[in-house]
């Protein structure tokens, strides 16, 4: 057995730096806190790369298939003999892959933020929170059991909350952070219920036991338990609800676009590359249970993914805030990943979807982080989020322009860039499983190419807006991360994922299927062509097209009124018909009753208190009257 105990340090180092910067940061020069945070992430990144190289290559694990290795585990809470919560680090292909994704993107974001956040109030607070986030996310992916994952899942939610609300003077940022927290927390309720059902019936939290094909979860007696589905299926659907919340899947996606109120590097790190794929990671982590134990739950995953990807792609075509376009694009791409997991089978070639999903997760992290950081550089230069305020920026921001273009091409799925390879695998997996989902994906591929190039042309081409200050290219500290990520976006597609990250740890052969790849590239090219025609030079075409679609356009522009639905359900129904009556009932009926008792006692004593007047004459009268009354009673009534 190979020793991986040191992987414990990967999450712990950012945690130590979080404490350090959090407590002493305000005494440092701002730049020092930034450098310290970056250094911490740098060490974590180096350790992650060492782990990846060792695990995948130098430790010769490939011959027997990549097994999951428990690098470290301790009992954290020993509640009863049946209920024990452990904490540890689990090393397997997907967790190693996620380590690479998280530390790479996080390191790039740290470096970038040194420049981006310059001069902001709360500079050290920002870096402290970034470290906290990195710690939580790394702890999440290394979790050895589902409860540890849940704990870190919540920690990730908290760090996201803190970072979205970073500009806490801004009411919109506060509202957005609150919304993100509440929506994901609501989804996590499902997650918790799922965990409870699953662990109650299997008697374990441990991932290795749960996902073992002969383990208690998969061999759990099936049969319809409730509404035609087995207990296992229900628990997995509930767990997926948690994943759908974090990964902004329809209909729990409403928080993601608003989360763009946070600083842009945060959007790149949390809301593009790492935290939002936690849901995908969760399903991937429990994948054997889904695939072997509850294929129905997997169908739900596939359809939720498919619908989300289409839904988000349509909305993305109409938005004008560049970060929101990217947010919807993220949602759409995560939909792809979910769909790929949903259409996948278990083992060997059947597990193509599983591999494709993780592959896409990996490439997406690179190019989406790049897009967000590029958007940050643009916002930095123009001081606006709205693409109406932009245009012709290619002359002013050459490096941003090139890297952004690379990202757009790769997300559109043009070979030989990374996005093409991973997306193609997903297409193939979907083709073998379900033709409707497959067609949705083709459509989404076209839409993706269209809205990304709409974004690209509106920012860098189109009419040259008159700027108050000439926009400047960002400093090197910001452009170098862009170049690094662009390198990743170009070459990540050549990684042999089918030999490394597979559903059962065994490598399999995968090759390009031209009958699927060529049409998808053509669709993407058509999307790009349409965007070029409409947005390369400003013309009346976009308005005309919007006019043709009429209501559809209006609905998409208003995000299909999902926010309004939520507001309606919470404020108009739950608050008005449950909470307010409860509060009223409490104040007026329950408390009113208590007050009534008090008042009755008070009134009663008011009535009789005059008897205790202290005046002797009155006592005399009463005494004599009473005595006479008694005499009369005895004399006349008794006989």
């Amino acid at each position, binding site marked *: 057995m190979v020793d991986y105990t040191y992987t414990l340090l990967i999450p712990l180092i950012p945690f130590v730096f979080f404490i350090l910067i959090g407590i002493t940061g305000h005494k440092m020069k701002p730049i020092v806190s930034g450098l310290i945070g970056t250094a911490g992430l740098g060490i974590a990144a180096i350790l992650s790369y060492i782990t990846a190289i060792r695990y995948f290559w130098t430790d010769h694990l490939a011959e027997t298939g990549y097994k999951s290795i428990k690098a470290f585990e301790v009992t954290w809470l020993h509640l*009863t003999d049946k*209920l024990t919560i452990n904490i540890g680090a689990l090393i397997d292909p997907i967790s190693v892959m996620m380590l690479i994704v998280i530390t790479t993107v996080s390191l790039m974001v740290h470096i970038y933020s040194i420049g981006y956040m310059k001069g902001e109030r709360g500079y050290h607070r920002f870096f402290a929170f970034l470290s906290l986030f990195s710690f939580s996310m790394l702890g999440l992916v290394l979790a050895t059991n589902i409860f540890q994952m849940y704990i870190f899942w919540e920690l990730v939610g908290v760090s996201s909350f803190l970072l979205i609300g970073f500009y806490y003077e801004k009411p919109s940022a506060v509202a957005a952070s609150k919304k993100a927290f509440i929506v994901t927390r609501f989804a996590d309720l499902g997650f918790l219920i799922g965990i409870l059902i699953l662990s109650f019936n299997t008697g374990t939290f441990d991932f290795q036991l749960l996902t073992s094909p002969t383990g208690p979860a998969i061999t759990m007696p099936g049969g319809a338990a409730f509404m035609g589905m087995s207990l296992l299926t229900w628990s997995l659907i509930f767990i997926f609800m948690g994943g759908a919340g974090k990964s902004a899947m329809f209909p729990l996606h409403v928080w993601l676009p608003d989360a763009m109120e946070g600083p842009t590097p945060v959007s790149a790190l949390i809301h593009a590359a790492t935290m939002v794929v936690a849901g995908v990671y969760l399903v991937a982590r429990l994948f054997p249970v889904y695939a072997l134990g509850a294929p129905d739950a997997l169908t739900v995953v596939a359809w939720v993914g498919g619908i989300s990807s289409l839904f988000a792609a349509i909305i993305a075509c109409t938005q004008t805030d560049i970060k929101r376009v990217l947010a919807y694009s993220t949602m759409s791409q995560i939909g792809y990943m979910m769909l790929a997991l949903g259409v996948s089978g278990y083992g060997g070639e059947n597990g193509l979807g599983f591999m494709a999903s993780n592959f896409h997760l990996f490439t997406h992290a690179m190019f989406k982080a790049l897009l967000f950081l590029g958007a940050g550089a643009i916002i930095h230069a123009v001081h606006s989020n709205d693409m109406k305020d932009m245009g012709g920026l290619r002359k002013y921001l050459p490096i941003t322009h090139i890297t952004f273009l690379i990202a757009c091409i790769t997300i559109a799925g043009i070979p030989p860039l990374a996005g093409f390879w991973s997306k193609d695998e997903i297409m193939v997996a979907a083709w073998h499983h379900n033709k409707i989902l497959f067609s949705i994906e083709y459509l989404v591929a076209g839409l993706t190419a269209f809205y990304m190039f709409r974004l690209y042309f509106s920012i860098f081409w189109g009419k040259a807006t008159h700027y108050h200050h000439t926009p400047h290219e960002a400093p090197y500290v910001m452009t170098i991360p862009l170049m690094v990520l662009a390198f990743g976006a170009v070459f990540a597609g050549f990684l042999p994922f089918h030999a490394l990250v597979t559903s059962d740890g065994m490598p399999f052969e995968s090759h390009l299927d031209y009958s699927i790849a060529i049409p998808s590239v053509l669709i993407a090219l058509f999307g790009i062509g349409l965007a070029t025609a409409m947005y390369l030079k400003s013309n009346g075409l976009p308005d005309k097209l919007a006019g043709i679609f009429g209501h559809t356009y209006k609905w998409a522009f208003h995000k299909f009124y999902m926010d309004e639905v939520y507001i309606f359900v919470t404020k108009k129904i739950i608050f008005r018909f449950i909470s307010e009556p409860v509060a009223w009932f409490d104040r007026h009926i*329950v408390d009113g009753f208590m007050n009534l008792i008090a008042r009755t006692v008070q009134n009663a004593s008011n009535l009789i208190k005059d008897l205790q007047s202290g005046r002797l004459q009155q006592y005399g009268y009463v005494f004599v009257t009473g005595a006479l009354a008694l005499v009369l009673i005895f004399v006349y009534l008794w006989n």
Partner: protein
Amino acid sequence: MNILSLFILIPLFTIIAILFTGNMKQTRIVSAVGMGIQLILAGILVYLYLAERNAGNTAAMLFYYDAVWFPTLNIHYTIGVDGISVAMIALTSIVVFAGIFASWMVDYLYREFFISLILLASGVFGFFISLDLFTMFLFYEVAVIPMYLLIGLWGSGPKEYSAMKLTLMLMAGSALLFVAILGIYFYSAPAGSHLTFNLLEIAKNHIPIEMQRFLFPFAFIGFGVLGALFPFHTWSPDGHASAPTAVSMLHAGVLMKLGGYGVFRVAIYLMPEAAHEQAWIFLILTGISVVYGAFGAVVQKDLKYINAYSSVSHCGLVLFAILMMNQTAMNGAVIQMISHGLMTALFFALSA
């Protein structure tokens, strides 16, 4: 000297020391030092307790000490702790220590304020270490009465109303409790032998089931009032909103735990059969507390009201868990009490 007695003596000495202080600054420092010692002592207690348990001492109660102080009725000063009491003592000492700092700026009748606050704390500590029903009840009352003064004098808003309401409702709870305690006392031993208030002994000599059926609701509701059991929780929102910060902290953080602890120690521990029979009634009530408190909280406009209603919800959960009557749920209840104690206290400290 038994370490547990120090938990009552230190507050008393602190109170005496406060009487001799000349100005606000001295009062604060004496209070902080006294409660700081108490906090350290709690740390030592946790350490000693764990050491003792690890050494294999499996007695039900550790640091047991017993002395008669009213022989006629066989009332003892019996003290001892198990894991639950140790946890509660640790929680209390943290909250009280923090509470002293939260009331750093009290300048109106500051000496009396700190005396009342520490007296309240000593009542709570006494409650948690007592194993004699009567002594326990006595400490309970010691904890409730300063609360009236603290809210009525140093509170805000409709403070007299809130203080009166809180005290009357808790006193009504005490009245029920007193009935229960006397009932338990008279059936605490088989006919002919010596009656006792000692919890451990009563648990050994089972109370007749007919009496349990009659007494269990008294004991449960009596402590339940303090644990914000629906529909006897309405003192809590008003009381919390009017109380000064430190008192809200202590009240929500610690005093409401007295309810849960008491329910466990007295109602469930002494009358398990009746508890099994009647659990469903109280499960419904506590279940209502949980949901009702939560719904009540979401539409409140006042931060302190939000927190008060959420406390109703959380304490309902604690009582609910205790009623499950199994090991896992009990662990959960204790952890919930600690976490709720810390977070509510923090919340009140911040919202002031």
